[in-house]
């Protein structure tokens, strides 16, 4: 029974609790048992708050017994990346610098999940200060990939990807500044949504780069991401960048047809450095989309894609270095050497180049939209062009090609942060090694409904997202 519960999707388990087929306490018991079972192998949790969660589950059950349904996530246990602040509780952000003092505010994302009835039962591992694409963390030990613990999880939302894939959580919050939702989703074989810049409030979440940071869910399906986005999205006075655009009923819009949808395939940039085995899985995914009635359309991307990627790097580097300036001066020894080196690069970037990167951004989005969205509704792209590397290969001194491997892991991610566009990462196959392959579906600004709808249709026609790692 417990294994059955943890294999349910978020929407399925929420329905079971709502209809009282399962109590919140039973569901929590199953999730806690699974979390404890996988933690020694995966190191995906930084803390499990068992007593608090059990008390909250009892209250949720009592509320439901009285006929009070708090919201669409009533009684659903969730854990989140340890960078979403909750008043009175420390958040380590995967670092040795934060995590000693209790936070003063609660993140808007957590408040919205609380209001929807979710129960937080722990906090998840992450790359130090969310500044790393692999999931390495030298302070708390590396988080492990549930498909093969020798391989990276992807980062920075490493624990979110690993725990949800391992069925130790139905979904989790991640953050995506340069791929940190989509990389662990793709690498761990789950579904992750990087939202349009401004779609979800970042208030009370650890900042890395205010021009690029987004908050988004990792879950088992596009449907679950739709359910969570409906709870999370919307304006927030506490985050000036949170957009006032209306929040559609994302779940209802999953039912709209995808037949006739135009799906673009890039003729450049995203074709670079493609490993044949990864490319084969992506080609198969296009056939599946075609069988759903989508029209596959080749598109020519702007010639400046590499410049857009580098400009995104400049924005993150400069803003990240500014946020960390005081600690870089006073506590440099408390950073891991890798994260410290990344942050120090930002200190050397001329201010004019940072401003140029911001000035270029509107032009970049207009050019990209003209090249892509004038012709298609959604762009189909790989997440990473190579098979998932091992932890050792991407460790310091682990391989002469380490820098190139890290660059390839982020190359297809960061442009969409810079362009501010929504992107859904989802599994589209498995390699002979047993490791998942991910694809991205990229939409127009605030068109999360379109990419979720297409992702949902793809997942109705395929079963890659249902595969579970053996642990």
């Amino acid at each position, binding site marked *: 029974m417990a294994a059955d519960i943890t294999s349910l999707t978020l929407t399925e388990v929420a329905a079971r609790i709502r209809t009282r087929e399962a109590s919140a306490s039973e569901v929590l018991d199953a999730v806690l048992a699974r979390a404890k079972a996988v933690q020694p192998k995966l190191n995906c949790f930084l803390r499990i708050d068992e007593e608090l969660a059990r008390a909250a589950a009892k209250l949720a059950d009592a509320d439901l017994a009285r006929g009070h349904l708090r919201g669409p996530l009533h009684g659903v246990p969730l854990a989140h990346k340890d960078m979403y602040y909750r008043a009175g509780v420390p958040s380590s952000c995967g670092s040795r610098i934060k995590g000693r003092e209790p936070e003063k505010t609660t993140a808007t994302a957590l408040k919205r999940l609380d209001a929807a009835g979710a129960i937080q039962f722990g906090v998840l591992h992450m790359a130090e200060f969310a500044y790393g694409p692999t999931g390495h963390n030298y302070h708390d030990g590396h988080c492990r990939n549930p498909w093969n613990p020798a391989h990276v999880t992807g980062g920075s939302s490493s624990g979110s990807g690993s725990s949800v894939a391992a069925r130790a959580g139905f979904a989790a919050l991640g953050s995506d500044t340069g791929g940190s939702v989509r990389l662990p989703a793709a690498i761990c074989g789950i579904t992750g949504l990087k939202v349009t810049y401004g779609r979800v409030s970042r208030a009370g979440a650890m900042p890395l780069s205010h021009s690029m940071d987004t908050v988004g869910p990792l879950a088992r399906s596009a449907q679950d991401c739709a359910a969570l986005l409906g709870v999370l999205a919307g304006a927030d006075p506490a985050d000036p960048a949170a957009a006032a655009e209306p929040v559609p009923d994302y779940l209802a819009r999953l039912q709209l047809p995808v037949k006739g949808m135009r799906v673009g395939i890039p003729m450049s940039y995203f074709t670079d450095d493609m490993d044949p085995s990864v490319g084969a899985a992506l080609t198969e995914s296009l056939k599946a989309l075609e069988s759903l009635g989508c029209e596959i359309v080749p598109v020519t991307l702007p010639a400046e894609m590499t410049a857009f990627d*580098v400009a995104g790097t*400049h924005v993150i580097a400069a803003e990240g270095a500014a946020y960390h300036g005081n600690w870089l001066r006073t506590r440099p020894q408390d950073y891991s050497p890798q994260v410290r080196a990344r942050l120090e690069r930002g*200190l*050397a970037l001329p201010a004019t180049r940072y401003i*140029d990167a911001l000035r270029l951004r*509107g032009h970049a*989005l207009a050019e990209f939209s003209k090249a892509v969205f004038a012709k298609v509704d959604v762009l189909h792209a790989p997440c990473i062009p190579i098979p998932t590397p091992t932890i050792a290969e991407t460790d310091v001194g682990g391989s002469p090609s380490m820098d190139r491997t890290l660059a390839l892991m982020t190359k297809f991610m960061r442009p969409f942060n810079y362009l501010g566009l929504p992107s859904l990462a989802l599994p589209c196959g498995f390699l002979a090694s047993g490791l998942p392959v991910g694809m991205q579906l990229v939409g*127009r600004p*605030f*068109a999360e409904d379109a990419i979720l709808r297409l992702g949902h249709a793809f997942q109705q026609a395929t079963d890659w997202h249902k595969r579970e790692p053996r642990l």
Partner: protein
Amino acid sequence: MTVKVSEAYVSEVLAIQGAAVAPEAPKAIAAALGAQLAAAAPAYAALPFEAEPPTFLAVLAKEQP
């Protein structure tokens, strides 16, 4: 196009910001920064005088479906 960033520049600009870096850091930072600046230089150079950072949010709103 190549952009050469000197280690001395990196050391000094980090020093005036109070960051005490490891001895080997300036060389790596200079190399990475030079490559990045070279890659973005043509796009930055083509920017019109009037382009301002907030135009991004205007384009984001305009390009909605």
